[in-house]
């Protein structure tokens, strides 16, 4: 029994704090906004130039001038502001965003992240991913623990990097890990998904990690 996509999103949502400014990637990270804990106010940034991103619009209220970074129609909130791409990435690069939650192809035990290209396949581009992982204060990766061809949590990424020593936490369908990306404490397993065993995690993880389970 591993976590579902929704459960992974819910776990990542526990990293949110009141007043946080947060950037959510496409896919499972987008689901995190459905699990914002009660009593907590979180402001979503969309790197194409919007702070205070609202939910998808009601049918018939879609506005071609109002989209998120995934090019999906969204809506406005009372706190919303708009700005240019230069100002948006100044905000990102300048460390003003508290938390970025995003997907990944591979994460290494030192915090290296690969999520933008597979050599030999058509490259779509990195978009804003490199800026986000380099600039945002704290980076949480949400991803399936393993790919079809093997582990995604590695000693060293073999895909081209999106960023070097950038990941602080990884939430997978099997477990939650923290990474001391600038220090020497390496990677630590801090939680197991419901019904998942330590052995199962070890068998599916190439990266070296300490076991530091909470309430275990």
């Amino acid at each position: 029994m591993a976590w579902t996509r929704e459960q992974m999103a819910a776990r990542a949502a526990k990293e949110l704090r009141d007043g946080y400014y947060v950037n959510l990637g496409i896919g499972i990270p987008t689901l995190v906004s459905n699990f914002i804990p009660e009593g907590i106010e979180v402001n979503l940034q969309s790197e194409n130039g919007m702070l205070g991103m609202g939910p998808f619009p009601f049918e018939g209220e879609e506005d071609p001038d109002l989209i998120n970074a995934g090019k999906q129609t969204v809506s406005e909130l009372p706190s919303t502001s708009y700005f240019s791409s230069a100002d948006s990435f100044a905000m990102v690069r300048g460390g003003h965003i508290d938390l970025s939650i995003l997907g990944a192809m591979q994460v290494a035990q030192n915090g290296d992240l690969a999520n933008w290209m597979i050599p030999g396949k058509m490259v779509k581009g990195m978009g804003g991913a490199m800026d986000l992982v380099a600039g945002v204060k704290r980076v949480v990766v949400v991803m399936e623990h393993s790919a079809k061809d093997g582990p995604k949590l590695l000693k060293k990424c073999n895909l081209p990097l999106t960023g070097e020593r950038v990941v602080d936490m990884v939430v997978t369908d099997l477990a939650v890990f923290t990474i001391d990306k600038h220090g020497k404490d390496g990677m630590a397993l801090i939680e197991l998904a419901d019904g998942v065993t330590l052995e199962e995690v070890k068998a599916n993880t190439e990266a070296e990690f300490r076991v530091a389970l909470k309430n275990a």
Partner: protein
Amino acid sequence: MNKVYPDAKSALEGILKDGMMIMSGGFGLCGIPETLSDAIRDSGVKNLTFISNNAGVDGIGLSRLLETRQIKKMISSYVGENKLFAQQYLAGELELEFNPQGTLAERIRAGGAGIPAFFTKTGVGTLIAEGKEVREFDGEKYLMERSLFGDIAIVHAWMGDTAGNLVYRKTARNFNPMMATAAKITVAEVEHLVPAGQIDPDHIHTPGIFVKRIVQVGTAKKHIEFRTTRPRTAQAATGVEV
């Protein structure tokens, strides 16, 4: 000094040349200067380098200049929406330079601001760093990135006035304001054109100094790439997938 032109064709007259570098605003299909890019297509000018975050989607925007093979090179951050792009690139018919989106935005801003180079953390230790100077400041590594400046820039705004002042609408602002500052000649298409003095000067996003030519194009050409909605009966959850 008249800046107003009657249509896109006349607004581009005399300034297009084979091999030139063109900045083109927009993010996805949002805020793209489509009337002007269509007019560039119609002009037949070729071997163009475009600086644009994306390359349109098949049949819309810059993709229409890929169809006619007028584009030699793209400087972009993401081109995943475009099948024609992939074909031409894989066939070796199109050059491509990927920039991280924030680096692209800042290189353009620097170009307009007289800053030839700047340092950024983005891309350190990645393929993007190849051939670039790496330098430490206060114990952290940064890449040196150079500025970008175009021969012309084409931008789309919601409202403009006869002095060339521009106002963008919502997320259609995106790359347009920086691009307007970073070319020898900037041509703006606007949905609404008003006499100077009609826009509150505190609301102007692009001062008229940056805009040499302006043309009113209306609102007909606006597209939605991914139409995502929530039903009216649903509870209002933020960013919920439906």
